[in-house]
């Protein structure tokens, strides 16, 4: 069995374990320059592992890696867009994978690539989203997900010599949010099915008057809410586009209060991990990575609709760099244990403070003069400092569990979200460090909190994942 292992240096290596000898493994590929590896299939002779590599320069690659010595042969590079699924044909001659179509940024097509690099064929295309391809055990067809009949369903296209040999057929309609995992020799499809999602709600800071944030809110993933500084709107993230084995694609949404319509920000970002309003409510500070493969901290200007980089961090992964935008236009970012001031020109960098553990969850007080941040080491703690990172003092120590959210609930109070063995918790902590008040709240996951005007917005709920089997989905071996 081949698998990816997150090593102590913080990148993934490719390991091979002998399933007959539990506990024994070999590392066959270990390269910090390609710090994300995803093994997808063994070649029929067991000598090669079809692997997705994601490099530090934000290039994804379809590669064959020797299971013996890690020798790597790159078949194709795809820049930062990576296949959501790829598979090796039973005869070992072809790779099937999905990739963005050249028609629409949210649609994918299915391709077949000869492993000798000699040929590529677009197997399935059209104004549909076609993805997650898998070979049938007999090698005579490719199964994949498509919205060709409306809702995502399972489709099959016959294949001969790496090319389509007939029209695609709908195998099963309306499969829901499914992720094909594999096809057994008997032709049964094993797949994951996702249901549910997090919803936005708000309540008073004392935990009373809890209700959905929007009366028309649909059952869909909405999370990381952030009140505008004047309370006139809320920004949040929404899961969009097709399913993914990794992080779902997220849209930035701004909605006026009370109860305005959703408005998506122009999609310039590849991934948004967190968001917060910038000074004066003129735009949003986005932590994540853009479509040019740059990770760090960005600013989305609500008036111009433009997104610009505040701080690019070459060492950050696609989740970007925690940080805040100061009133003078500079950004304060957390890089490991360091607080770094960047700007106002993006290339002006100056370390301003150093802490004992990695920093996360930076948030500025309403006046912009003080900063709350979390240290996330062996134990988590919450600290208050000036906006220049000076005079830091601890206001909350968590012997167990983790800090999941921070938001100033006034000039002298910080709302703290935590998660531990007893579920999620909310607290109001005095900035002076002398008072900690629990806030009654749902015990399930709280992905994002925001406080304003005596209220707290939060996301709660979450996804369920189940494993299903669809029998006789493909021709048996």
């Amino acid at each position, binding site marked *: 069995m081949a698998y990816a292992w997150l090593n102590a240096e913080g990148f993934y290596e490719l390991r091979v374990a002998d399933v007959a000898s539990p506990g024994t493994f070999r590392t066959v590929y270990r390269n910090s320059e390609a710090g994300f590896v995803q093994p997808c299939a063994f070649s029929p002779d067991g000598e090669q592992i079809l692997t997705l590599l994601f490099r530090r320069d934000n290039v994804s690659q379809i590669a064959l890696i020797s299971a013996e010595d890690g020798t790597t042969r790159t078949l194709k*590079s795809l820049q930062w867009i990576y296949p959501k699924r790829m598979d090796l044909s039973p005869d070992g001659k072809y790779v099937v994978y999905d990739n963005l179509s050249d028609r629409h940024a949210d649609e994918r097509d299915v391709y077949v690539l000869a492993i000798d690099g000699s040929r590529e064929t677009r197997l399935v295309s059209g104004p549909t989203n076609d993805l997650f391809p898998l070979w049938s055990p007999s090698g005579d067809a490719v199964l994949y997900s498509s919205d060709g009949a409306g809702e995502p369903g399972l489709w099959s296209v016959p294949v001969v010599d790496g090319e389509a040999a007939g029209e695609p057929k709908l195998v099963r309609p309306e499969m829901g949010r499914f992720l094909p995992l594999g096809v057994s020799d008997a032709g049964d499809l094993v797949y994951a099915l996702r249901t549910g999602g997090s919803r936005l709600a708000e309540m008073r800071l004392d935990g009373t008057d809890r209700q959905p944030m929007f009366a028309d809110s649909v059952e869909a993933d909405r999370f990381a809410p952030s009140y505008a500084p004047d309370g006139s709107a809320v920004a949040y993230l929404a899961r969009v586009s097709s399913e993914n084995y990794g992080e779902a694609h997220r849209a930035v949404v701004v909605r006026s209060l009370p109860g305005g319509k959703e408005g998506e920000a122009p999609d310039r970002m590849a991934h948004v991990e967190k968001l917060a309003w910038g000074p004066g409510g003129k735009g949003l500070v986005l932590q994540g990575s853009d479509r040019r493969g740059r990770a760090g901290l960005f600013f989305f200007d609500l008036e111009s609709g433009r997104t610009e980089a505040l701080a690019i961090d070459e060492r950050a992964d696609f989740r970007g760099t925690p940080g805040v935008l100061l009133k003078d236009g500079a950004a304060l970012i957390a890089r490991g244990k360091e607080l770094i001031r960047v700007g106002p020109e993006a290339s002006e960098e100056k370390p301003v403070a150093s802490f004992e553990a990695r920093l996360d969850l930076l948030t500025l007080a309403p006046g912009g003069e003080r900063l709350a941040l979390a240290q996330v080491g062996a134990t988590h703690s919450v600290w208050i400092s000036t906006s220049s990172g000076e005079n830091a003092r601890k206001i909350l120590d968590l012997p167990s569990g983790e800090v999941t959210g921070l938001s100033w609930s006034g000039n002298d109070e910080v709302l703290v979200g935590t998660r531990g063995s007893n579920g999620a918790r909310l607290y109001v902590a005095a900035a002076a460090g002398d008072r900690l008040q629990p806030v009654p709240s749902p015990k399930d996951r709280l992905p994002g909190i925001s406080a304003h005007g005596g209220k707290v917005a939060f996301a709660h709920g979450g996804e369920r994942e189940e494993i299903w089997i669809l029998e006789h989905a493909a021709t048996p071996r």
Partner: protein
Amino acid sequence: MRRLRDSLLLCTAAMTLTAGDVPLGLDAYMPVPEENPLTRESVELGRKLFFDPKLSRDDSVSCATCHDPELGFTDEHPVAVGVDGQKGTRRTPRLINRGYGRSFFWDGRADTLEEQVVKPIENPIEMDLAMSALVARLESSSEYEALFEAAFARKPDSETIAWALASYVRSIVSGDSPYDRFVAGEVDALDEQQRRGLEIFRGKGACTVCHLGPNLADEEFHNTGVGWQDGATSDVGRQSVTGARRDLGAFKTPTLREAAVSGPYMHDGSLETLEDVVDFYDEGGEPNPGLDPDMEPLHLTEQEKGDLVAFLRSLNGQVREGGRGVRTAPQ
């Protein structure tokens, strides 16, 4: 309606660039049109045509005159120089790894290599030879007649000439550079200064916004302000192809492979050295109405600039053409 496949993307067997021939750092898969499979015969024929001055009106200029193998398949002139010493308006592009390209010429006006390779032949300020005249010249040569027969089982014509030249250009590859070995996991392949330069390249310098992937180029078009003076430019670049306002003054990102042997730089050859290029980007390019929003001053220190140039020199690798090795000029 759903289409089963896109015939335009169908590709076919590679005989010259087999898996074992692909230099480290490049993809095994190179797109090749179905109608022009890459064969040893077509590459050899293309190579002969490439170096033959018969392809110009007065037998004075071959493709290789401007695309000198020892200079990264470009030359030392700021702009192309054709028959009678006529000067063009743009720098001769490097032909390194163009088989992986998606569009051709600085403004991307050719969609395929087959379309691109014959344009200079007929261009009056480059080789200035009508295609019909070239066909006649080649038909009169028994040697060429035999080579065309072997490659395509046809006589020379405009299509087979394009096929042969495109096949040869596809055989021009560069990889296995110190950078490629470093990325493959050989940590000592770059020295300390080059590693610092790589950090600048990916981080503070933001070079990877455009220069990324195996070929260190995004194959997109950007306005960096090169050629602009007092808010005006003499070359509209990509806009001449699309007509779009946003494309005014935008040019295709070139590969950085073999850059150290192939100055002067930029589409107009206006920057003589790599140091000049780094200085240009350090200043955020030349302000103009369509300047790419990612262009901004970098505020690099002198050491950082030196590190970046040192890294750029690590992109010189093993150049091959027609299955042969090429000796490039000293760095």
